[in-house]
């Protein structure tokens, strides 16, 4: 639902690639995970523990906690506060977080 005014692939800058569930996402260095997901056509990053309703980044400034994802096995990471890193593994967070992860 969001697009870049100038896509990272179209500029001469280096790009960062990471995994989101089963897909590869390309981002610009310094992007947050949430911005990278939204500009890659991924609009849902978790579901709620109460009704399993889908949720997506909402405030982009660390207030709403709607963009919680798992990053490299750590649950409850705010995607709008975490910077992308090459090779990172991001997973959707379904319902309540798992204690084992």
């Amino acid at each position, binding site marked *: 639902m969001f697009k870049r005014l100038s896509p990272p692939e179209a500029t001469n800058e280096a790009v960062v690639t990471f995994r989101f569930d089963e897909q590869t996402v390309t981002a610009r260095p*310094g992007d947050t995970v949430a*911005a990278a997901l*939204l500009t890659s056509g991924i609009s849902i990053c978790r579901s*709620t523990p109460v009704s399993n309703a*889908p949720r997506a980044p909402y405030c982009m400034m660390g*207030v*709403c906690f709607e963009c919680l994802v798992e990053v490299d096995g750590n649950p409850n990471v*705010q995607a709008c506060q975490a*910077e992308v890193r090459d090779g990172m593994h991001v997973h959707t967070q379904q319902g309540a977080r798992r204690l084992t992860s």
Partner: protein
Amino acid sequence: MITHDLVILGTGPAGMAAATTALEHGITPVVIDEQPAAGGQIYRALERTPVLDRRILGEDYWSGESLIKGLKDPQIDYRPASTVWQLTRQREIGLLHDDKAEMICARHIILATGAMERPMPIAGWTLPGVMTAGSGQILLKSAGAVPQAPVVLAGCGPLLLLLATQYLRAGVEIAAILDTTPRDRYRAALKHVPGALRNVSTLLKGVGLLRELRRAGVRHIRGVSALRAEGSGQLERVLWKQQGDDNWQTLETPTLLLHQGVIPNTQITRAVDCHHEWDEQQLAWRPRLDEWLGTDIPGIAVAGDGGGIVGAKAAAMQGQLAGLGAALALGKLTLENSTERAQPIRKALARDTAIRPFLDVLYRPAKQWRLPDDDTLACRCEEVTGGEIRRMADMGCRGPNQTKSFTRCGMGPCQGRMCGITVSELLADANQQSVEETGYYRLRPPFKPITLGQLAKAAEEG
């Protein structure tokens, strides 16, 4: 634990101005910020924004360059990407950086933690595709990202109009602006125009934005009195009613950006239990502050929007005042000297904030946007509706801490940040008591998620 003279939280205009002012008076401050780059929300990503056409974000954005340059003085211990998870009344601060937790202490603290957007709890506001106008602007500034399909902006306030104009300049297609400003508000705000003229540049900026939108032919629908977002699992359409018309009108869109002003982010001042007051003009809580912006806790001050909404320019002036207050508290300035230096700043501050009564009246969000319907979620985290809160009031709940026990409202991951003000106002309305009497959530650290592993590492490295 290392004790520093001055620790400043936040690198928005207030935090940055406080840091450089303190430095001018021989204090080398530690400046903490959650973001990887300085600027706060207003000057967000200024140094590395991919939006290079300066016209898109506008002059006011780029005016933050000098503040950011000031923060880069090598004498300032600036620590970006650092999260504060704890603050005590003894001025001990728990920090988390790169998976490493540590505690530091300060003789004096300036909280410059800024504002957040006022929640706008409408039906369907949790659907993916519905976001805040602020988030749209953050995506634009930091990632050069804009809505792919025609976007709907809904609500009221300067930020909504500014974002619409920035989108316009960036070539983004705007399906409509759904303006929720009640029609009689323009007349009510009129009597505050003479006062607002003391800050004529801001007033003219607003007029300029409206003119730019009108000239471009952006569909601007005024007097919107009802609004809902619909879609199955994702936003598909926005529905609204206009004052005096009972019919729903519809627009298909994958993106709706909501906004009805900003409120002080009081999460940390609440957690240290500073005395807070309900500001009836701004319809928000704010910590009670003295003339040097000090709270009722010795050595803890608040500068900028966190102490009441003043806007970016005034926030920087408050940062200067708080910096002088720190110099006074730390014995670097006499009361006479600091008062003398503060005088022109106080004068400029009064001039700049003279526009607030006008803006606060004009864009005061109407009740239906602050008090959600019975079927609409008030607490997004625990999915508690307005109706459930009203039912709790019927059962005898007088304050938000009681509704927590009954419904878990405010106990999800956001720790009440998103629903706090809504629940206070809902309970006050249902119980026919003042918001002040109703009170707010009692908050506890950690302010941000911290794992046991991260805490353990701090203990090991003592």
